[in-house]
């Protein structure tokens, strides 16, 4: 049942495609016409807030929902009208949807049973799948006897036992506590690598998406906003929504200075952006600076390194977050800047406190221009 993962990095074989697919509920269009291609062997995450249409896409692929327009394809075949039972995809449901009247092994072997596999084959495959998900010896248990994390693993074993071409995961980690969620993230990722099966993972948790995915599809109000690798999405957000939904960001309304190509006037003064970024920007826009890209020091201390963007401010809030301190600093007339200082590498000579006068600085390279 183990399938090797011969895919080399960069090899891109389309497996499932959505072409101009739209979904209406009555007069309400919940999914705008959408194109999406899922490559064989990739871990693709569909990320968005609730109501963004991410679960709608999952249901379209799984066959639980028919599109109002457009086409769903598998390899070269049109599967738009095909019911779920005839698609070579399996789903891990948000509530796991394990059959309560069956044992763990019977649950896992369900897809083999409906195909008419013999009892010994079923038991054998179920045992192998349970071993793979780390539940060897749990086959005879009742589902109700398992913890949430174990039920999650059974749901995964049930989905992989029939060797589907693609596995759909509908926010499977949302019911788990934080520690278990982290553990399951790396576990899911390692299973996916081991099997080489395509995973389509739906979540509203940006941290989960960044940690697990080969590619992320960011959605908002029924549209795909951006598709890219986690690093691309994080470092080059397409618009203000992506910039603030994935990780945190300071967004400054900005107006380009006509005579300086990379310089902008903002509420906190003139800011220099990454050179080359500003080409073609001649209207008002926003500048995005990540909290961890801003360094801070007590006013009056010597600068450790000369940086171009320097802003004075007053500390308004201090929050200790274990790995770092989070500060909210008032700057300019109405602007509050959020920034993070790791405990070890800060330049502040000890944590700041509320009311202190500080000077912040950031590298132009870390300043992104968001077109509005």
């Amino acid at each position, binding site marked *: 049942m183990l399938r090797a993962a011969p895919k080399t990095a960069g090899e891109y074989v389309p497996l499932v495609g959505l072409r101009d697919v739209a979904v209406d509920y009555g007069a309400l269009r919940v999914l705008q016409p959408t194109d999406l291609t899922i490559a064989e062997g990739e871990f693709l995450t569909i990320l968005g807030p609730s109501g963004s249409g991410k679960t709608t896409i999952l249901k379209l692929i799984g066959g639980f929902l028919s599109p109002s327009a457009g086409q769903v394809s598998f390899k070269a075949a049109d599967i738009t009208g095909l*019911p779920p*039972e005839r698609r070579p995809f*399996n*789903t891990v449901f948000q509530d796991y*949807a394990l*059959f309560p*009247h069956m044992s763990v092994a019977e649950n896992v072997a*369900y897809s083999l049973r409906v195909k008419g596999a013999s009892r010994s084959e079923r038991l054998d495959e179920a045992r192998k799948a349970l071993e793979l998900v780390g539940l060897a010896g749990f086959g005879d248990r009742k589902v109700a006897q398992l913890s949430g994390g174990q039920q999650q693993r059974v749901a995964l074993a049930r989905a992989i036992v029939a060797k589907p071409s693609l596995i759909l995961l509908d926010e499977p980690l949302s019911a788990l506590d934080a520690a278990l969620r982290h553990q399951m993230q790396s576990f899911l990722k390692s299973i996916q690598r081991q099997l080489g099966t395509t995973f389509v993972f739906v979540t509203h948790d940006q941290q989960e998406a960044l940690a697990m995915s080969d590619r992320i599809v960011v959605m908002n109000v029924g549209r795909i906003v951006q598709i890219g690798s986690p690093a691309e999405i994080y470092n080059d957000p397409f618009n203000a929504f992506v910039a603030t939904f994935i990780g945190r960001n300071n967004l400054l309304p900005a107006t380009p200075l006509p005579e300086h190509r990379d310089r902008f006037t903002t509420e906190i003064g003139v800011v220099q952006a990454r050179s080359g970024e500003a080409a073609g920007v001649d209207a008002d826009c926003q500048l995005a600076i990540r909290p961890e890209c801003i360094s801070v020091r007590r006013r009056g201390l010597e600068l450790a390194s000369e940086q171009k963007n320097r802003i004075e401010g007053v500390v308004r809030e201090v929050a200790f977050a274990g790995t770092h301190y989070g500060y909210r600093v008032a700057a300019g007339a109405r602007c509050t800047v959020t920034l993070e200082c790791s405990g070890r590498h800060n330049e502040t000579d000890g944590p700041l406190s509320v009311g202190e006068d500080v000077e912040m600085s950031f590298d132009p390279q870390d300043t992104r221009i968001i077109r509005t």
Partner: protein
Amino acid sequence: MSASRMNVAFGAVFTGAVMLLYLPILTVALYAFFPVERGSIDLSAPTLGYFADLAGNVSVLEALANSGLAALLSSLLSLVVATLYAAYLREKSGPFKVAFEALIYAPFFLPPIVVGLSLLLASASSGIPRGVATIVLGHSLFTLAVVYRIISVRLANLPPSLVQASADLGASRLQTIRFVTIPHLMSAYVAAGLLAALLSFDETLITALVAGDTTTLPLRLWAMMRVGFSPSINALVVVVVGICLVLSLAAFATLSRETRPA
């Protein structure tokens, strides 16, 4: 009044009510196991003789067989019809569903004499001879309310994701019904079937009107009591109460296991 006095008062009322209800039955049961000499009970000579008399009474045995057959067939018929109704009405809503369900529940709440007379007229005008068949139809009609209620509630509790998961894993609609829906309904079937059998077993009034020449155990008991009291009547009461007790305990045990949160 203090809380403890309240408890004592409630306890007294509860005990009184239970005694009032069950003492007569206990007395009858007592009389079934001990001989009565000149109006007083002889506790020194317990006997199963009255039950032996019953076992030798062909008409009582025949009535028992009829009652059992009617209970079995009417509860099975109820289960099948209630399942079809529940499956059909599951997707429906609005006034149509309310009206349909009212029709299902009505025979249970209408006076039995009305239901019995209607069935009598129906069997007369349709030419169906009165007997076990009409008893089974009559009993199904009013047990359907209880059976439908239990099954439809259980069916409504079937998580849609289980049906989706089954389809997702490759099961056809029939396979989903066989492997997921029916196992989900099984405990409801057991509880509803036992309750229906119980209701059928001790039903008297409707039965009396549609039975024709056929006799069931309650009808036989009724007939014996009209002739005059005999010790075997006490024994027969014990048999009827015993069967009802077992059926109802089994039904409620299944129901309470079923409704316990997972």
